[in-house]
């Protein structure tokens, strides 16, 4: 069995990065960035999700191409659902004050 084992240092590094990003996103929410508050919050969330998926879930190191295809297809499906639906609802109504 040649599963390679990742160093525990790396796991602690990812953990610290996740903690810092959590505190940053909670603090930044109180600063007025106009419409960019949401953008910043979602970018940080996506960064955290990527760290978890790539390192904690071993997608970066130990997964087959078939597994990667399932992941990419799932995310692609999710984006289709969200983006196409928002393209509809986002343009259907006049802006609410």
């Amino acid at each position: 069995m040649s599963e390679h084992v990742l160093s525990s240092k790396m796991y602690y590094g990812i953990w610290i990065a996740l903690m810092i990003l959590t505190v940053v996103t909670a603090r930044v929410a109180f600063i007025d960035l106009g419409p960019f508050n949401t953008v910043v919050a979602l970018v940080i969330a996506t960064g955290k999700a990527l760290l978890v998926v790539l390192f904690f879930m071993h997608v970066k190191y130990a997964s087959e191409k078939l597994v990667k295809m399932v992941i990419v297809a799932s995310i692609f499906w999710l984006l289709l659902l969200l983006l196409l639906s928002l393209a509809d609802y986002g343009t259907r109504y006049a802006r609410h004050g």
Partner: protein
Amino acid sequence: MADSTATPVHGPELLHHFSTAQQQRDAASLGMWLFLGTEIMFFGGMFLAYLIYRLLYFNEFAAGSRSLDIWLGTINTIVLICSSLTVALGVRAAQMGKRKLLVILLLLTLIFGLAFLGIKGVEWYAKYKEHHIPGMSFDAGDLIRDYPQIHIDPAHEQIYFSLYFAMTGLHALHMIIGVGMFTYLLYHSMKGRYGPEYYTPIEMGGLYWHFVDVVWIYLFPLLYLIDRKPLG
């Protein structure tokens, strides 16, 4: 292995319809990821409902979001991240055959998981006392008083809290299932069932746990951090 024609030597965990342990592992991994794909679709519908209503009723969503306890939300995010660390280290301990360490890490994961659910319960109870649970006794009067700068329609406010309870409730249900799963894994770890030659259940349970963590990573900013900046 000198004699390749003899029955391969393997543990009892290799099922007869797989040729090798590696093949069995790969199949389990693919199956788990396919399941997580269906979970993305499951939660995806909720996220879409959230996005559409947030677009339509932004003021109500902002006021509802401000009424959540940001401290408890942040602490819960940190608790879940810590539990993901103990799960990742647990899989590593199993890979390296450190059975005692594996038991300790699984126990820590369970404690973090239960702590998350406990804190969530405290938050839900606060919402119950504030009459923020959608239904007959729902009352958005406090929010209307607190935020006179924005127009708040109580019916639309209920939509925010319906989505809040549906999304955190579905997430908490996944946490409860995860706690059950890890109790099972802990029991079998204590019996020394998992080691370098067989740790697939730990790895698959770990994938599920991390996935539930990722869902929370998105729920936290979307529900708690909508509009915290000072009202102009």
